[in-house]
């Protein structure tokens, strides 16, 4: 049984080298794009989780204006207990929220009795903090990871300070902090552990118990500087953000302005730029793929029509409807596109599978031995394969159209 598909395949097989070259090009393009998406996606997800799971949480709530002046960790922009209670109610009612942690943040002087340096302190409830940022214990590089990460009277200090001021685990140090009323207070702490910093070597974040922070600041009421929120599913970020924003924007001050602000991790971390760049790069490489497919398929199809002008003249003369001549060549372009795409997809999936078996490890900043686990969704494959096939069809359209419109007498006389 003879049909369009069979004719297309045979015509493609007739110029085996050219067909092979073009479909190889499409195959390689598909492999490049799918592998890039799979590995870059894995890399991005991993990097994002390094930030969200170790420091930021997925969402953070602050008093309005706090983030704008976060460098100075202002004490006059803390949230009052009744505000916090309301926020907790909202968070408790949101299905998307897995956990949240309230923090008191302050700038302090860190002294080992011979030298001082500045440090940024997070006062935390260890249990709540670990629930909201589960990678926190993993950042401890010197000191016990066993039991509670932190007890009252203990401090976790960043490597930067430990190295610079030669402080070891078990040492006693002093924190000196200026209170909201301008007075100064000091308190001694036992160095419980030293932790690597996420934001690079300049990280100056230390952790103490939230009760110690309040004592140090001589807080009259249990105020809070920020609430870090962990979501059950990071994919629900935008949705949860919108919902929380909506709920909290109802809390107004005397001037009828919202008192709170909500941020996603992305607007709090410079890494979001890198994440965006990966996205831009992905778009760019997709455009490259589309161009490769467009140009190579069009090239082959223009050649195919040119070589077969007399054949086109003959089939047109014997009365083949122009639409059928069009489909004849479109089918050929389609087979080329589908063949290259199918092969490319199979190869990509095999390579992705292999990468997951070989367990490729890499380092990022101070993070060592991160496991790359490339993965690609069926939706991504479908979109890319669909686009390529569509582009192949589109690239064949002009040559096929030209073939279908050819004047049989002129075509037959073509030499």
């Amino acid at each position, binding site marked *: *049984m*003879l*049909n369009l598909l069979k*004719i297309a395949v*045979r*015509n493609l*097989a*007739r110029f085996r080298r050219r067909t092979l070259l073009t479909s190889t090009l499409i195959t390689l393009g598909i492999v490049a794009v799918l592998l890039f998406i799979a590995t870059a996606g894995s890399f991005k997800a991993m990097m994002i989780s390094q930030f969200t799971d170790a420091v930021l949480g997925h969402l953070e709530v602050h008093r309005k204006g706090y983030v704008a002046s976060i460098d100075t960790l202002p004490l006059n922009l803390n949230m009052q207990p009744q505000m916090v209670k309301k926020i907790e109610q909202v968070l408790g009612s949101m299905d998307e929220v897995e956990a949240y942690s309230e923090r008191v943040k302050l700038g302090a002087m860190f002294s080992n009795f011979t030298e001082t340096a500045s440090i940024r302190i997070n006062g935390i409830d260890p249990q709540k903090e670990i629930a909201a940022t589960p990678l926190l214990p993993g950042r401890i590089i010197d000191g016990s990871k066993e039991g509670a990460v932190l007890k009252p009277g203990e401090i976790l200090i960043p490597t930067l300070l430990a190295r610079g001021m030669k402080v070891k685990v078990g040492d006693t140090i002093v924190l000196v902090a200026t209170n909201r009323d301008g007075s100064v207070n000091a308190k001694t702490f036992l160095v419980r552990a030293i932790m690597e910093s996420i934001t690079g070597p300049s990280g100056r974040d230390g952790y103490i118990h939230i009760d110690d922070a309040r004592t140090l600041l001589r807080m009259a009421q249990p105020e809070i500087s920020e609430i870090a929120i962990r979501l059950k599913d990071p994919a629900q970020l935008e949705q949860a953000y919108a919902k929380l924003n909506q709920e909290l924007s109802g809390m107004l001050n005397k001037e009828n302005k919202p008192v709170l602000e909500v941020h996603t991790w992305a607007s709090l971390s410079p890494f979001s730029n890198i994440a965006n760049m990966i996205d831009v790069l992905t778009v760019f490489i997709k455009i490259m793929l589309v161009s490769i497919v467009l140009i190579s398929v069009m090239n082959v199809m223009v050649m195919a029509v040119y070589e077969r002008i*007399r*054949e086109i*003249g*003959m*089939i*047109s*003369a*014997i*009365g*083949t*409807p*122009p639409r*059928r001549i069009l489909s*004849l060549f479109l089918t050929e372009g389609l087979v080329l596109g589908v063949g290259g795409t199918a092969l490319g997809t199979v190869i990509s999936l095999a390579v992705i599978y292999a990468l997951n078996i070989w367990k490729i490890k890499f380092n990022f900043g101070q993070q060592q031995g991160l496991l790359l686990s490339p993965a690609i969704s069926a939706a991504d494959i479908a979109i890319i394969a669909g686009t390529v096939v569509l582009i192949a069809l589109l690239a064949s359209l002009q040559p096929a159209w030209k073939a279908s419109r050819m004047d*049989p*007498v002129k075509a*037959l006389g073509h030499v």
Partner: protein
Amino acid sequence: MTLIRAQGLTKTYVTGEVEVPAVKGVDFTINAKSFVAFVGPSGSGKSTLLNMIGCLDHPTGGRLSVLDTDVSTLNRRSAANFRGQHIGFVFQDFNLIPILTVYENVEYPLIMVQDWPEQTRRKQVMRLLDAVGMSAQAGKRPDQISGGQKQRVAVARALATNAQLVLADEPTANLDHDTAYRVIELMKKMRDELGTTFVFSTHDPKIMGEAEVVYTLEDGKLRAPSLKSEAAHA
């Protein structure tokens, strides 16, 4: 029964400023089931005339009816449809499709031009291959058979859709003399068996002798037709 009727049929090619009168007002009729040749020197207008009869080109003047249809006014699509329904073509350079077998080349118009069901298609192709003596080569590709065999296959293909009229512009020009003769004999045999009207053009005097009606073109004009019987008397 008259199959083709031309009255004052004219074709003038216009290329830029230059007008080339290729056919200059010819009148003729061709009866059904006849075996007709157009002869004449190169440039006399044979191809132009055959193209107009085959609805591949429009006349620029006069009247032309084929199978009781005024074909001078057919648009592109109706012309293609008309050709597909009623006319078969045999070409000078065979024009078999190289990627298809002999069988598939004959089957081609039954799929691409008319939608015949598989069963009847098979019967028709086998019958025609048998009639042109190419059944044994059914599975071969065009590059595996000789020129004469190719033209036999082309004749079978032209007859596949049961066309009432087969047009052949110089069907033997690419064949050696004996082979050419046998192809013309084949066409005549098919006419006898199927009642198909054959109209062809040729340079070759021996070939034109096989025609029952010979129209001679000279510089776009027709000389009086000569029936074979008359020619024999002259």
